[in-house]
């Protein structure tokens, strides 16, 4: 491939690197801005030109971020709410998607194709189109302003079922047949053979489910009324919209709220990226 490298090639190559690096600056600079601004007093943040290196660490930002403008310390509680909701949704999504995917991939029963098509069809229903009826149902069964109300509508999703089914279709039948011949109960087969052997797909699905809830603004906006039940996106919106909010504290809130996601990203980046790569393998 590299028979002779001309100056033209070299020029093209450096141009490519220049464009790539320019975009790195564009994507990374706002994140660096968030981190550095969270350590600065407000007067330094909106100053021309922006100083990228903070002179000192301005602790009051983080105090204000956690205490809130009203000093009620809702931040820890709201973070906890987000963790509870996101983790619960992750657990139920993995469990239900894996069960359903297994049922659809490895069993023959009447209406199997129909069930699969119907589940896929729900992918076309945008949440925004059903949020109001969903809100009315949630209120009717008394789940508004509760963990139940935040968790139940997201217990499983069609994409998760699709992912697990696609994976399990390729799962070798011999393992299942052998276990059946040994007299293993169907539930045991699922728990001790199917479930543990789906680990990589489950990891990707978990991350997708967790971040969707960590990011969820619209639904909590509808069902949550009290400060105590707010999740982190609601806390950020409230904090940012308050007129007297300190810019440094705003970025401290943003940074603190992003830490769990950054930890997940650095620990499990391959599954993070796997989640988006799933789409490209979906041909036809």
């Amino acid at each position, binding site marked *: *491939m590299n028979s002779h490298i001309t100056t033209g090639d070299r020029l*093209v190559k450096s141009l*490519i*690197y220049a*464009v*790539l690096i320019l*975009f790195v600056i564009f*994507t*990374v600079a*706002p*994140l660096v801005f*968030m981190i550095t601004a969270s350590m600065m007093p407000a007067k330094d943040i*909106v*100053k021309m030109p922006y100083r990228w290196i903070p002179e000192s660490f301005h602790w009051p930002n983080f105090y204000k971020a956690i205490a809130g403008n009203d000093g009620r310390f809702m931040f820890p509680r709201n973070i906890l709410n987000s963790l509870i909701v996101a983790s619960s949704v992750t657990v139920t999504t993995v469990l*239900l998607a894996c*069960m*359903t995917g297994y*049922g659809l991939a*490895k*069993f*023959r*029963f*009447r209406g199997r194709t129909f069930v699969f098509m*119907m589940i896929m069809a729900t992918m076309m229903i*945008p*949440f*925004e*189109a*059903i*949020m*109001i*009826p969903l*809100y009315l*149902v949630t209120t009717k069964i008394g789940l508004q302003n509760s963990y139940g109300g935040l968790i*139940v509508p997201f217990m*499983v999703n*069609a994409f998760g*079922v699709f992912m697990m089914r696609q994976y399990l279709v390729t799962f070798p039948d011999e393992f299942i047949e052998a276990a059946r011949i040994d007299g293993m109960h169907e539930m045991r087969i*699922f728990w001790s053979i199917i479930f543990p052997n789906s680990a990589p797909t489950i990891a990707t699905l978990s991350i997708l489910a967790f*971040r969707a809830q960590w*990011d969820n603004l*619209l639904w909590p*906006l*509808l069902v949550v009324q009290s400060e105590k039940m707010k999740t*982190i*996106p609601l806390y*950020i*919106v409230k904090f*940012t*919209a308050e007129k007297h909010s300190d*810019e440094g504290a705003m*970025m401290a809130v*943003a940074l603190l*709220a992003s830490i769990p*996601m950054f930890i997940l990203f650095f620990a499990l980046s391959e599954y993070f990226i796997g989640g988006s*790569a799933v789409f*490209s*393998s979906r*041909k*036809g």
Partner: protein
Amino acid sequence: MTKKKNRPGRIDRKLARWGLIFVAPSIAFFSVFSFYPIGMAFYTSLFKKNLLSLKRPDFIGLKNYIYLFGSSDFWNSVEATFVFALGTFLPLLIASLMLAAFIMSISKARRFFQMAYYSPAVISSVVSAAIWLLIFDPRGLGNQWVNAILQTPGIDNRWLADSTMVRLSTMIVYFWKYIGYFVIIFISGLANIPRSMYEAAEIDGATGWAVFWKITFPLLKPTVVLVSIMSMLQCLKTFSTQYLFTQSGAPQGPINVITLNIYNTGIRDFRIGRASAMSIILFSIMLFFTWLQFRTSKSDEVNY
């Protein structure tokens, strides 16, 4: 499945039952939380219904739809949504395809570039909107950078005040957040193209540009179509950025996208019927794009 005789035996029936047991919880879930609400949304859209009023909602047929199609506020939302969707997804598509092709053409630091582009996707959309809110401050980084590039010191671009600029601002936030996501999709699409295709072209003496247009692009077309529709659907559903911007004082009109309008009409103004009609219209638009995706991807099967 191993081949068996077609006669359903006792074991087959038992297995069929287990299959149903495994899928039953999801069937129940999707019935209650997807099919019932969409049916309900359609039903409610035919009524004049107020969330707070206790009297029976009046059946008004298609009047909600007729009202919406005659309402300038609704058309403004449709316009805002499509301006946002097109203005975001076209640059997103072109830039991510270009960056993915560039990354594949270099040999060093591929992983670094992917991670760097992907990093904004890690944080939540509310956090990204909050960061950019400060960047778009009159004395913020946005003005500093634009003025440095254009050599126009001291100009305020009114990122969050001017009606055109506030649209551009929401697009920038979205573009920034999703660029890495699509770069990665394109990279895995590019990685699926067999090496032998390039080697054959090399032997025939094809150069970089020609290789891209004659080989890479046609083979990548399914991914391009998929990414276009996906990002289009994603853009049509945009909410967080617009919500946070308007909450922080940006003018609502230019960025009053359909989702924001549904939220305000239904939850703030309690007009459930009208909000439901808007939901159904949004659903129909998205359904159309999904259908378009199926149609295009069916006719575009690629054989290597």
